[in-house]
């Protein structure tokens, strides 16, 4: 009987709280003699202080108690606030702890965040999610609970509070290079998605209008989407380098075996399938009666296209562009392997040097960029969906 009640209390929040408590025995910070050596890991109480550790434990226990007993809105809000507090506390104390440890350690000593912190972040996510779910009608609280902790961490990052954390140090040492590669990354994926859209939409329209074109277009798009990205990059290198050997003029335009040219071509090919498919589906799913009515009322073919087909298919087409964009952000990272640059450069440099911080410096921004692009495209899809259409299916 009791167990049943617990489970109905708020099982997601309970799991999150337990996960939070589970983070305690892990190492929270790792102290390394240099960026390449293995380090010693420090427990919560060694890394921060017994006081901070006690505060964090108490806060987790509070979360656990509240999630077991969750009854109303106030409980949920408290859970959300507490979770945010734990996150903020962790990072607030991580900064000075890193300062202290690097100051006392060797000359090139580094302090990095370790498993305990990551588990804490995951547990906070679960609690925040659970709290949001319990507050369906309170948009303000929902947003506050979702973003406060994250915003605080971002502020700490930008104010230099966390400057002695190893990843940040890695960034500070390469700030201009980072900006350069970020811009390159954006140009590569943005350019290829734009080109893919310009090619993909007409192909999709053609496939939707012409049954004979449909099969070969999709056959091509499906096969290319199946081929591993690294293999496709590789397959493009040979012919392109052969071309640049045969016609050295091309090299002046940057067309070589490795570099941006094969990357762009492969990225464009990859972005085709989602865009072509969604354009095709967008046009094919249109109610034939709508088109019939449009023609029957005296719209010309271009008018039917502009007034009916474009607005009705636009949300799906843009949804395809969204899928292609998010995918392209990740594939551009792979393109660094063939010398195209971009944020993947840090990842593969880091892998080559066995420097974990450098890997993270590449990987985390790639993820953030993907999430950002996803959010922007979702907004565009939402704005472009005509009001009369039921909310999209995604």
């Amino acid at each position, binding site marked *: 009987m009791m167990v049943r009640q617990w489970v109905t209390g708020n099982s997601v929040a309970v799991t999150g709280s337990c996960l939070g408590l589970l983070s305690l025995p892990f190492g929270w910070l790792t102290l390394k003699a240099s960026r390449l050596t293995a380090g010693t890991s420090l427990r919560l109480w060694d890394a921060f202080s017994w006081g901070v550790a006690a505060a964090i434990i108490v806060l987790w226990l509070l979360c656990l108690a509240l999630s077991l007993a969750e009854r109303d809105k106030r409980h949920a809000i408290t859970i959300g606030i507490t979770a945010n507090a734990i996150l903020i506390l962790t990072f607030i104390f991580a900064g000075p702890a890193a300062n202290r440890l690097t100051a006392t350690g060797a000359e090139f000593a580094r302090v990095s965040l370790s498993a305990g912190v990551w588990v804490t972040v995951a547990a906070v996510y679960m609690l925040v999610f659970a709290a949001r779910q319990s507050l369906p009608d309170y948009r303000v609280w929902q947003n506050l609970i979702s973003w406060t902790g994250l915003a605080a961490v971002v502020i700490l990052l930008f104010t230099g509070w966390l400057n002695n954390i190893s990843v940040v140090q890695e960034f500070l040492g390469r700030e201009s290079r980072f900006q350069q590669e970020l811009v390159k990354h954006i140009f590569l994926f943005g350019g290829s998605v734009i080109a893919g859209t310009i090619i993909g939409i007409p192909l999709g329209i053609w496939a939707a209008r012409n049954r004979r074109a449909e099969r070969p277009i999709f056959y091509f798009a499906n096969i290319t989407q199946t081929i591993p990205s690294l293999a496709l990059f590789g397959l493009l290198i040979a012919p392109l380098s052969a071309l640049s050997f045969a016609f050295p003029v091309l090299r002046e335009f940057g067309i070589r075996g490795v570099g941006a040219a094969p990357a762009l071509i492969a990225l464009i090919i990859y972005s085709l399938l989602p865009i072509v498919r969604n354009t095709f589906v967008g046009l094919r799913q249109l109610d034939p009666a709508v088109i019939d009515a449009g023609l*029957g009322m*005296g719209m010309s073919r271009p008018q039917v296209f502009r007034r009916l087909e474009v607005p009705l298919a636009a949300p799906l087409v843009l949804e395809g562009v969204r899928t292609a964009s998010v995918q392209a952000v990740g594939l551009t990272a792979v393109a660094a392997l063939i010398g195209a640059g971009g944020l993947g450069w840090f990842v593969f440099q880091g892998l080559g040097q066995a420097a974990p911080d450098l890997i993270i410096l590449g990987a985390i921004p790639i993820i953030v960029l993907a999430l950002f692009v996803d959010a922007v495209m979702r907004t565009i899809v939402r704005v472009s969906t005509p009001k009369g*259409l039921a909310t999209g299916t995604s």
Partner: protein
Amino acid sequence: MIKLEQVTKKYGATVAVNGLSLEVNEGEVCVLIGPSGCGKTTTLRMINRLIEPTSGRILVNGKDTSQVKPEQLRRSIGYAIQSVGLFPHLTVATNIATVPELLHWDKTRIARRVEELLTLVGLSPAEYAGKYPSQLSGGEAQRIGVARALAADPPILLMDEPFGAVDPLTRERLQAQFVAIQQELKKTVILVTHDLDEAIRLADLIAIMAAGKLVQYDTPETTLSRPASKFVHDFVGSDRALKRLSRISVESFIKSAPTVTINASIKQAEAAIGSRRSAWVVDDKGQLLGWIDRTDLSQVSSISEGMVTLESKDIALWQNATLREALSRMLGQGFKSIPVVDEDTKLIGEVTLGDVEAATAEAEE
């Protein structure tokens, strides 16, 4: 007004429409009917050139349609279809405004027209203008479809099963409304249906088609009484007399009925019933509530105590209903007379079984 001369449409080897000639005069409703695949929809769509005939000529107002730009032609012909085809991304008002916009009417004129049309099809402009098609019921959507077809006040209206996709009750309402609107607007209408009752009810002329050919083109009365062939005879069925009742509105058969208001005294009620067996009971606004039997009057102290309550939408007829519906209600309820109400369910009078029988006998001749 509309004239088809030897129109043929072939798809490869199949002949969808075979040498069809047909003439519809101004202000007439011509219903194309026949089994599915008989070419009726193809015929309709050839008139506004959504389908081009293989051979033959179609004249609208004496002008060969093949000489007119299809868009131009279609903008002058209203078009309503079974699946309605309302544009889901546009509001009801913008949907209705489509053709006026294509014709570059000015904004105030369009707004006025939209309001007019919504009122015409019995939907409140304030409530409906801003709605989206997904927020409409099937019947409402069909009415908006008709309003949209009428938007630019085209002299001709093409309708492909415009009342097809709704439940029978709504369909009857929409048909009655169509009859009323048509009486007012006098459009030239070509309507496709597979429902013979609908055809008989709405048509001035019925064109029965089979396998792409016109097999009979006559008034409903003649079609029913003198089928031109075995096919037509089978098609219209053996209940022709009953079907003919669909042509006759109850309106001319409404008699004044004995009525008492709910608050009347027993004395007044007795006076109202007179020698009859019962009377309809209405409230002080005249809306039908039920009926009361004479024999019950002596045993009760007030009308409301002895009244049998009626659900007026189940029992009462609308004033635009047909004798066929009247008969069907009488048989269904076991009543010898049926009350008739107006749109506000106010009692207008009643129709009796005797009158329906007399009308049937008359139609039989």
